[in-house]
C-alpha cells in the first residue's frame, strides 16, 4: 500500500518568505508527527496530532511555525518569515494509533533558505 508522502521533496526559498510543507499520512492512521532534522543530526520533534484532540505543539521552535491537520488526514506545516536556521529536512510520520506503535516516516522535504 501507499506509504507516507510529502511534498515538495525540495524547496529553496528566500529569507523572509513563507513556505508550506505538505504531508499525506497512511490512510487510517490517526496519529501524525512532524520532525526536523538538521544535517548530521537526530530528529527534533515539532508537533503531534492525534485524532480530534488538541495537537501537542510543544516542540515548535517559534511562533513562526504552525501546523494544521484537516479532516484527520493531510497535514500542512507552515513556516512564516523563513530564516536561514530553518534550513533542514522536515520529516512527517504517521502511526496507526497511540501507544507502542512504530512510526512510518515519509521521505522528507529538504528546505533551503537562502
Amino acid at each position, binding site marked *: 500500500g501507499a506509504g507516507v508522502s510529502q511534498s515538495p521533496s525540495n524547496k529553496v526559498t528566500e529569507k523572509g518568505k513563507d513556505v508550506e510543507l505538505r504531508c499525506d499520512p497512511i490512510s487510517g492512521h490517526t496519529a501524525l508527527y512532524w520532525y526536523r532534522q538538521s544535517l548530521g543530526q537526530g530528529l527534533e520533534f515539532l508537533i503531534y496530532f492525534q485524532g480530534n484532540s488538541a495537537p501537542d505543539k510543544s516542540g515548535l521552535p517559534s511562533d513562526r511555525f504552525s501546523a494544521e491537520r484537516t479532516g484527520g488526514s493531510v497535514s500542512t506545516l507552515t513556516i512564516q518569515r523563513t530564516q536561514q536556521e530553518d534550513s533542514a529536512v522536515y520529516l512527517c510520520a504517521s502511526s496507526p494509533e497511540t501507544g*507502542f506503535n512504530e512510526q512510518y516516516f515519509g521521505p522528507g522535504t529538504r528546505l533551503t533558505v537562502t
Partner: protein
Amino acid sequence: SQKIEQNSEALNIQEGKTATLTCNYTNYSPAYLQWYRQDPGRGPVFLLLIRENEKEKRKERLKVTFDTTLKQSLFHITASQPADSATYLCALVTKAAGNKLTFGGGTRVLVKP
C-alpha cells in the same frame, strides 16, 4: 538535563562480524525504546521496539537489549552485510511525554566487504 546519546563516530566493521551500537540516556524514565534505520535521503524505518520490562528482543539478525538500571540499550547486527550500512537511531518514549518519540543523534554503520 535530559539526554539521549549515541556514538557520533561512524562504526566501521568487516562483513560477517557483529556490529554493536549503544544508546545511553539520562534523566528519562522510558516506557519503551525503539530503533530505526535511516538511509541517506530517506526517512527513518522502524526496526525494533523494546518495553521497559523486557530485557531483550530479537528480529532476524537484529538484537536489542534494554537495561533500565544502566540506562542503556544495545543494538546488535549479527553476521553484518554491506547492505546493513546505514545510520541507526534510537528513540524513546516516556510515560510523561505521552506518545512523543525523542531521538538520539544516530550512529552511522559502514560494513565493508
